[in-house]
């Protein structure tokens, strides 16, 4: 088992193996997202209360799930990097952050837009949206911190520590915001409490979530390979790669 971890850690080996894995995830992501979208947009029944604006759930929920899990996987990679000194883990963490921020923004924007018909304003300090907004700031913090150092090694270590600290705070923030929200409970309908959905509503949602996750894996594999090119530029095997590439 131990040898396997260190083998996985060697950039050259990872560069090769990821090239083979990547296409599968791209294909899976494409199929799942296309099928899920068509099903969710055109075939799934509209919500009896919210009408068709309910269809935003098919992007909002997958993006929200992904936003949270990317931060967790970033923190896990940070732990692997700090404990076992596996550089690939740090490269993956560095590459995940921007996608996590993008997904958080998508969840934020779609959540706010979804609330417009019910609340009449573009923004509502709803518990889940506020937590999502704070998660976005956590992401921007990690990205800014990683960009602030000149020496790459201290940048990686600093960003890893912040990712670990951040992931511990996510549940804390979530519960405190929920408590804050119930304290100032305005008497309006919140989209957090949803009645149990019939099967033909949540099946496309499941497909979309799976699609988003395979998209995440595929993109992370691809960008990690680029990060390897950026960081291992002076290694011989990368030079040969570049030599034969053009």
């Amino acid at each position, binding site marked *: 088992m131990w040898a396997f971890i260190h083998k996985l850690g060697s950039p050259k080996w990872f560069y090769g193996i990821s090239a083979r894995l990547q296409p599968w995830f791209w294909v899976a992501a494409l199929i799942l997202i296309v099928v899920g979208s068509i099903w969710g947009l055109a075939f799934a029944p509209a919500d009896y209360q919210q009408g068709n604006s309910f269809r935003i759930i098919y992007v909002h929920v997958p993006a929200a799930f992904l936003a949270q899990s990317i931060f967790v996987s970033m923190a896990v990679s940070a732990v692997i990097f700090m404990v076992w000194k596996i550089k690939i883990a740090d490269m993956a963490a560095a590459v995940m952050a921007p996608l996590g921020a993008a997904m958080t923004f998508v969840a934020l924007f779609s959540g706010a837009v979804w609330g417009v018909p019910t609340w009449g*304003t*573009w*923004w*509502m*300090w709803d518990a889940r949206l*506020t937590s999502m*907004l*704070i998660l976005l*700031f956590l992401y*921007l913090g990690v*990205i*800014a911190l990683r*960009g*602030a150092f000149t020496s790459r090694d201290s940048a990686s270590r600093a960003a890893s520590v912040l990712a670990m600290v951040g992931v511990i705070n996510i549940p804390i923030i979530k519960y405190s*915001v929920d408590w*804050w*929200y119930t304290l*100032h409970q*305005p008497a309006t309908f919140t989209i957090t409490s949803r009645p149990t959905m019939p099967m033909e509503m949540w099946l496309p949602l499941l497909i979309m979530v799976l699609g988003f996750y395979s998209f995440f894996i595929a993109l992370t594999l691809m960008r990690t390979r680029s990060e390897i090119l950026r960081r291992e530029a002076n290694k011989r095997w990368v030079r040969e790669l570049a030599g034969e590439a053009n």
Partner: protein
Amino acid sequence: MTGTDGTLTGKAMTLTSGEPHGGLTVAFWATLKRDLVLLLRRRSEVMNPLVFFAIVITLFPIGISPDPQLLAAIAPGLLWVAALLAALLSLDSLFRADYDDGSLEQLLLTPQPLALLALAKVAVHWLLTGLPLALMAPLLGIMLALPAGSYAVLAVSLALGSASLSLIGAIGAALTVGLSRGGVLLSLLVLPLYIPVLIFGAGAVQAAILGDGVMAHLAILGALLALALILAPLAIAASLRISING
């Protein structure tokens, strides 16, 4: 000596005297372009004041209450104070980088008037901090349930006001550039001088909400800017000469 353009080979040393024609405008634009390139190469640093502005605005509803009526009442003041603090944040680095690598010394030793070269640096600071803050403010105004009709005035007053803030703040930055822990001292020096700009800036937005005339406030903001444009560069030049000696 491979003389590149004649003066050094053979001929007795020529004494150039008098102001090289067109030197000032060329020097001004070159300094402005150089600083623009420098700041845009560290794009993440340009983002920091904007994210700070967004986070500070998020804190108030959480700290006070998400009730739109209450937020709408205090929105103009909140937006202006938060923008003002965000602009202050990035002032410290205005001259510090040049001080550390020796180019500030060279700026002082040019025959060109230092005040106008310093103005070029302040202009870049306004372009990459004040203006983006002004453009982002309406977006955050939505989150504070700012009443309609005051968004344009908010942006215009902030754009106009932040120019004076940059000029006045640059005087403080020039005074504290030699000190190692100048950051906090800078805000102590400069915040009192910001108060007039804050009064008329926030006043303009308040007037727009109440429907009264906005031109009076904006005119005074313009006058403050004109005053700052004339006097601040001279004060900046004097302060730089003082603090260069550490």
